[in-house]
């Protein structure tokens, strides 16, 4: 048996793992912002949200599965009154925490508390390099609140936190400015892909990058291997050399999502019944859902390249993102809607917007929300 079976790791990952590598756990659907591209259509707390005791039991299960870190999000996770209790429990059990926040609750006091906690990474979201661009997506006051949170972390000596940006048609021209903001606070930049999921379905047509911008972004990322992407732009690898990462749709294979009520979905971008594998409250818990659910079993079976089979770039892009295809009404075994070779655009013209699938749960606030503390 050879010691290094290079190149085969991606194939092994397709078959699934004992436990996920990248587990996202959304603690709550409650959010004090109402971003127009929110993947989880967050706003109102779900009354069926996991209790503190249930959440702690789930953390214990993650520890038993040797899930080394969990990506915590929401909603806005910091609005949960037991937020620190839960992250302390994670850390005590050896489950590192990477959490995403809009920063509105990240006061000086909380920044100091986070700086004193080992194994916690913080990711602050902005979607524009200035208030005008950012607030058009995330709401009035949200840019200033995020910058204040960054200042608080910086002054508390937190160290290298992350600044997370969803790439849009409006903010790709600001990409160098994002890098400058990150440098100012000693932060690491993380860029991710816009998905037509949740409220993002309603805004994707206006927000998603142009083909020229995708090429620009690809080159920019190739030149900066230190910029994090959560492996989210693997569809761009069809442009040439592969980007850093596994270049694989990890849904149900290495990735999954646990939502605030304990439902387990194939990935954070498909909160929809078609991609729901089970619930952590059922017998056998998360472990059984991950290892035995019909949905995850089927996602680990060899998939057909379908309409992409004749394309020479399929090996590079793997047909792109399942969620992006699903929510734009495209077949899952065909091109990504943002296929860099243009196959997605032509496929999209045959799907009327009215025939795109309905979104799953909607926790959007019924009244307009204001940002602030």
């Amino acid at each position: 048996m050879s010691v290094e079976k290079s190149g085969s790791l991606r194939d092994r990952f397709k078959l699934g793992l004992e436990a996920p590598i990248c587990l996202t756990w959304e603690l709550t659907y409650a959010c004090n912002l109402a971003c127009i591209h929110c993947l989880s259509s967050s706003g109102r707390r779900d009354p069926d949200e996991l209790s503190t005791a249930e959440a702690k039991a789930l953390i214990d299960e993650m520890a038993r599965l040797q899930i080394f870190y969990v990506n915590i999000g929401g909603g806005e996770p910091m609005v949960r009154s037991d937020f620190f209790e839960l992250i302390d429990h994670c850390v005590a059990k050896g489950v590192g925490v990477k959490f995403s926040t809009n920063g509105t609750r990240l006061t000086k006091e909380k920044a100091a508390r986070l700086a004193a906690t080992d194994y916690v990474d913080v990711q602050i979201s902005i979607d524009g390099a200035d208030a005008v661009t950012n607030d058009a997506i995330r709401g009035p006051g949200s840019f200033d609140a995020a910058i204040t949170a960054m200042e608080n972390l910086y002054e508390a000596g937190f160290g290298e936190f992350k600044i997370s940006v969803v790439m849009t048609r409006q903010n790709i021209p600001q990409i160098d400015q994002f890098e400058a903001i990150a440098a100012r606070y000693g932060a690491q930049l993380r860029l991710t892909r816009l998905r037509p999921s949740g409220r993002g379905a309603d805004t994707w047509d206006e927000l998603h990058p142009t083909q020229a911008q995708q090429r620009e972004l690809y080159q920019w990322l190739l030149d900066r291997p230190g910029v994090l992407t959560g492996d989210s732009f693997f569809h761009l690898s069809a442009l040439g050399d592969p980007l850093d990462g596994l270049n694989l749709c990890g849904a149900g294979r290495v990735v999954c999502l646990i939502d605030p009520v304990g439902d387990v979905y194939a990935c954070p971008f498909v909160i929809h019944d078609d991609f729901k594998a089970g619930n952590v409250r059922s017998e056998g818990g998360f472990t059984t859902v991950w290892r035995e659910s019909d949905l995850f079993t089927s996602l680990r079976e060899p998939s057909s390249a379908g309409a992409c089979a004749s394309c020479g770039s399929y090996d590079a892009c793997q047909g792109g993102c399942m969620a992006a295809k699903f929510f734009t009404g495209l077949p899952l075994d065909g091109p990504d809607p943002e296929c860099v070779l243009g196959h997605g655009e032509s496929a999209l013209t045959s799907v009327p917007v009215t025939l795109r699938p309905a979104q799953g749960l909607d926790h959007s606030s019924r009244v307009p929300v204001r940002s602030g503390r």
Partner: protein
Amino acid sequence: MTKPWGLHPQVALRDEAFGALAYHYGTRRLVFLKSRPLVELVRSLGEHDSAAAAIDAIVDERERPSYETALARLATSEVIGVR
């Protein structure tokens, strides 16, 4: 290779069909061990007086260079180190 080696105290291994995942809680990096024999070798390092002795005990002579390379790579990412 002549020194006593072992798993870094801040590293945890999770067995997988292809080998194992190694997570370093200090550097927060995930490293893949891409074969079961390599995992066995890494786990056994602590029981031997030197990395070379651990290799002698498990690895076929012909495959020795590839295991030395793999250990060197794991040492660079601080998954293993001198005890």
